[in-house]
């Protein structure tokens, strides 16, 4: 049985006229040493992971699973502009920060970790992807502790960000860093179970039979298959909290980090993502 030892939740929804809020104070609080030459995506990862790990003893082989729908947008833009607008070579700073392994490297370095370190993406479902990978490795005994996070960066102006994301004008846009600290076995924390199904019908049956009367239930954005309408009638959904790529991470980590003691169930599924049911015990 997997257990949730800790959660952290950072979600900032942008006003139309807002500039990027400084992360420097939070970064200083989060990092053991001064961190140089890191972009906003990495700063978000550092802050979220450190907050999740605060007050917990991490083993050196604690694994890091980082997910993101769009990755380090700001560094990619800077590198592209240097090449195609300025006809220059991208700066090493921007180039290195575009790499998928850079954020995980800085998280591991800051927290003193040397274990497995992965960046996995799945559009709209990166949270479930990294959670599934971590759960598999915990079950196999690859390690006994895992930091699982999802980071989404926003690059201003919002109008450009919405265009590159294919979002309608006025859609709420948020940057985020959501993290869970998971452990295999033990008795601390809250039990977290992740089950997988080959079809929507099996997921529907499992959710209907397992969700307790006091549980909060979320049907993931993009959940597809026969039975979704029935589930929506049975479990009416709250309005979406904000527009970033993985609302499920915001929902789970927000409630878990906020101290909500009720059980949580999250149903996710559709083509390319399988069918999964996460249950966080009360």
């Amino acid at each position: 049985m997997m257990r949730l030892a800790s959660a952290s939740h950072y979600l900032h929804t942008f006003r139309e006229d807002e500039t990027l809020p400084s992360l420097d104070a939070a970064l200083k609080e989060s990092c053991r040493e001064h961190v140089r030459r890191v972009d906003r995506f990495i700063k978000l990862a550092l802050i979220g992971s450190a907050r999740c790990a605060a007050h917990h003893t991490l083993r050196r082989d604690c694994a890091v699973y980082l997910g993101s729908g769009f990755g380090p947008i700001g560094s990619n833009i800077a590198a592209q502009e240097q090449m195609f607008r300025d006809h220059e070579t991208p700066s090493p700073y921007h180039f290195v920060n575009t790499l998928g392994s850079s954020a995980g490297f800085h998280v591991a370095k800051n927290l003193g970790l040397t274990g497995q370190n992965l960046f996995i993406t799945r559009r709209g479902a990166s949270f479930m992807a990294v959670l599934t990978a971590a759960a598999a490795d915990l079950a196999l005994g690859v390690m006994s502790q895992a930091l699982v996070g999802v980071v989404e960066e926003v690059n201003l102006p919002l109008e450009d960000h919405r265009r590159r994301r294919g979002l309608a004008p006025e859609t709420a846009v948020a940057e985020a860093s959501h993290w869970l600290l998971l452990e295999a076995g033990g008795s601390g924390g809250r039990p977290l179970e992740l089950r997988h199904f080959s079809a929507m019908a099996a997921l529907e049956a499992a959710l209907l039979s397992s969700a307790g009367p006091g549980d909060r239930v979320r049907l993931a954005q993009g959940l597809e298959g026969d039975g979704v309408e029935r589930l929506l009638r049975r479990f009416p959904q709250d309005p979406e909290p904000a527009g970033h790529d993985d609302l499920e991470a915001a929902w789970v980590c927000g409630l878990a980090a906020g101290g909500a003691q009720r059980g949580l169930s999250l149903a996710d599924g559709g083509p390319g993502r399988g069918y999964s049911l996460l249950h966080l015990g009360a």
Partner: protein
Amino acid sequence: MQSVHLRGMGLSCALGMDAERCVSGMLDGELPRTAVRLDDLREPVEIQYYRIPDGADLSDPGRFEHLLPAVTRAAVEGAGLTAAELEALPVFVGSSCFSVGQAEHAYRSAFARGAATVPMPVCDYDHLARLAQQALGSRGEIWSYNTACSSAANALLGALRMLGLGRYRHALVVGAELANRTTLLGFGGLQVLADEVRPFDAARRGMVLGEGVGAVLVSTQPGPAGGLRLRGGSNNCDTHNVTTANPDGRSVASVLRQALAQTGLAPQEVRAIKAHGTASPSGDPAEAAGLKQVFDSLPPLTALKPYLGHTLGACSINELVLFAGALERGVIPATAGFETAVTGLEVEPLRAVVPAPDGCYLLNHLGFGGNNTVLVLEKGAP
């Protein structure tokens, strides 16, 4: 964890458009390097490169659409999967570029039209997995791994573990890297590129990049011919420096020991090692230092980047296909370009092919971000 069978392979790289041709070219010692000139910079550059001989313009944003389906079909054909198995087939992709080439094309076009600012398209990480799915008619789960040069090795490790847990019976694992400006100029800016690639040689000066699309079909069930198996592997993170491995080799040694422990192997049971071998001045010594800490006496060692270049996030699958293809032909490939050993390095890659005995082989991968992954491949009866 149970062994997983390597049921099919596909590859297009500088050596050729299909896996058989690529393996033959490697064993024949071909070094199909070419020069790529980038004229539209303030300071034009010429870079040595290993390009896929598909005849297309390197900046053509549609190259993945032509190359990736053929490679994935080659990996799956002959495996005898049923229509239902194909439809459920999960696709794991490891890449360091994904669709950045398409984003570059859109960005370049917009600036050429005179736009003052352009909202650069985001990199679509799912694109390559969807292409593979479309080619095969699959609707299974997709997984995209982006951990620099160990991306495809980690995708393969992820697939092996899901198979080991019984989540899937078969999985397609793709490594994909095509030429793009960001990579060519990014590595150029780091001043790690050279004109030739000579792993572990005294005259090594750096790496030569390349492109390649490789795919393997892995399965819990053996194929008709028995074939090769993947026993597992391990990944860790070296936090010494984001772009250079710790020269003391500790982290490389650690991931090697983890892989051996995870697969129940003693060092003396390893028949040979396919090194990462980028030929960079700092990378090869770190890898050599790690190997020497684990092996009292190094087994035969080879490095394959002289044949196809460093294909970055795809290199582990591309080199696995080449290495496995050689093992199937009964040999361990030589390291082209290796002539003079480095004093103090004590690592000498094979100068000529040698017979490949049954047993286990290590495949080593080191990526930026300190991302190290070792895979264990087994030949012969279990």
